[in-house]
């Protein structure tokens, strides 16, 4: 394989902005998404940034962003292209797309596009599932480096440092591969106004799950959504002495 034709595919998800404090709906059917600011999942921004850096370094030749979901995901794809993705694909669906379904849709897109690397965010901050990248890797029979903090690609192989419980490990494997991003991998750039304007002219293709022959029926049914138990504010103590006294005599934890 020549590095001259190394494509990177980056799946991105449209989620509630990370600064929004979500509210559970009174009827317990979900969270209130009406008039709530939506943004690209922060880990996916890191994924796009990493892919763009690999292209800028001459390692990759093309970065393709892909999103699965409602029509409004086009905005998320435009953001990805403003950061630097070359083109984008929307797999449009109004169905509640769960991680297994998304992994299958991305697999179908990957079979068409033949990327050598697929970089996912490690988890989406709405469903907090942390599954899709690993599922996709398994469906493809590819190696994975989940929770990556450093990526080096050269000569058809990758060396990835990843976060593990209590430390870090380094994995080496041949392409094609899956990488999922952790926080420390990079700091995504801000999309500049000229790049936002340029992104509007970039190619965005739309497909349907049926075009890809993928059954996206949900496997999990949400029966109800509730607020977590509220934790009441406690007391303010005047000084360190009072704090230690309370911890010893009232809470009895020291």
């Amino acid at each position, binding site marked *: 394989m020549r590095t001259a034709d190394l494509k990177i595919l980056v799946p991105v998800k449209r989620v509630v902005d*990370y600064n929004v*404090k*979500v509210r559970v709906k009174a009827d317990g059917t979900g*969270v209130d998404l009406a008039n709530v600011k939506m943004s690209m999942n922060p*880990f996916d921004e890191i994924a796009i940034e990493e892919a763009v850096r690999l292209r800028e370094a001459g390692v990759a030749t093309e970065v393709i962003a892909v999103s699965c979901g409602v029509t409004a995901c086009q905005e998320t794809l435009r953001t990805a292209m403003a950061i630097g993705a070359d083109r984008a694909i929307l797999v449009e669906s109004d169905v509640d797309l*769960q*991680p*297994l379904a998304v992994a299958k849709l991305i697999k179908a897109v990957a079979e068409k596009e033949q990327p050598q690397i697929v970089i996912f965010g490690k*988890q989406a*901050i*709405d469903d*907090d*599932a*942390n*599954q*899709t990248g*690993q*599922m*996709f*890797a*398994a469906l493809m*029979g590819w*190696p*994975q*480096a*989940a929770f990556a*903090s450093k990526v080096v690609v050269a000569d058809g192989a990758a060396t990835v440092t990843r*976060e*593990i*419980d*209590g*430390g*870090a490990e*380094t*994995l*080496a494997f041949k392409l094609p591969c899956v990488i999922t991003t952790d*926080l420390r991998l990079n700091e995504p750039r801000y999309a500049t106004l000229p790049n936002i304007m340029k992104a509007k002219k970039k190619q965005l293709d739309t497909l349907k799950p049926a075009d890809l022959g993928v059954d996206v029926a949900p*496997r*999990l049914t*949400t029966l*109800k*959504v*509730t*607020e*977590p138990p509220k*934790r009441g*504010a*406690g*007391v*303010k*103590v005047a000084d*360190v*002495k009072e*704090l*230690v006294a*309370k*911890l010893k005599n009232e*809470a009895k*934890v*020291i």
Partner: protein
Amino acid sequence: MSILVIAEHDNAGLKASTLNTVAAAQKIGGEVHILVAGSGCAVVAAAAAKVVGVAKVKLADAAQYADQTAENVAALVVANAAGYTHILAAATGAGKNMLPRVAALLDVAQISEITAVESPDTFVRPTYAGNAMATVKSSDSVKVITVRTTGFDAVASEGGNAATEPVAPAADLGLSKVTGREIAKSARPELAAAKVIVSGGRGMGSGEKYHQLLEPLADKLNAALGASRAAVDAGFVPNDYQVGQTGKIVAPQLYFAIGISGAIQHLAGMKDSKVIVAINKDPDAPIFQVADYGLVADLFQAVPELVTELG
């Protein structure tokens, strides 16, 4: 019903998170088996056999499981999945890395980070950084589940007497190779299992100040050290210190949040702690809304004072 729990271990010992996972399996009901995949890990299988409530230990001891790569372990689990209604692993870095591969290969959903069992097919799991608890029902024939350890009290590690049976290793896929592993050596308790945690945030000012101020306090309390994402982002401490939605989820007896403002994503990782103490100079910091004991003070004075006061 029978349930397969994937043991978490380092070939030398069984990790405590396995005990929480077994507890979740017992809530589901049915016979509980533990699969130990490793190399030279007979001691782990022996420990697993003593865990209360375990009926059988399956041991795959082979060179290709020495590093427990996700690819090889998932293939082994799938090869041994027949007959199980549920497959469980802890929602730790290791479990989150490996188990989704199992679910995909079995063509079933994974139910991530459950905190409660409602019935054998219905589970509660946190979404939106723990701000919305979803009760989900699975229609799949096999339920593949990661277990949030703080949601289930560990079963006893001694008292059981399960039989151990060897299982044939699956083929070595040879997809990836671990070329290095750096586990931070620390005399302190593990963050995920500590009874007391001392966490610092951006208010610590620097990595040097973080260690200089918080280590003596952690020493006094035999505490693990943690940090907010802001402190990790600022480079004060490594990523594995991070407590929060995307870091470690903890629920110690006593949690100190020092110089931590209390962003949603940090609260998601620690709000189930039994007692929370916050020290912050900003009286309006959101951390005070969840703290049992709040001290509005300059941490650079308060923390050394606290160390002295603890004697």
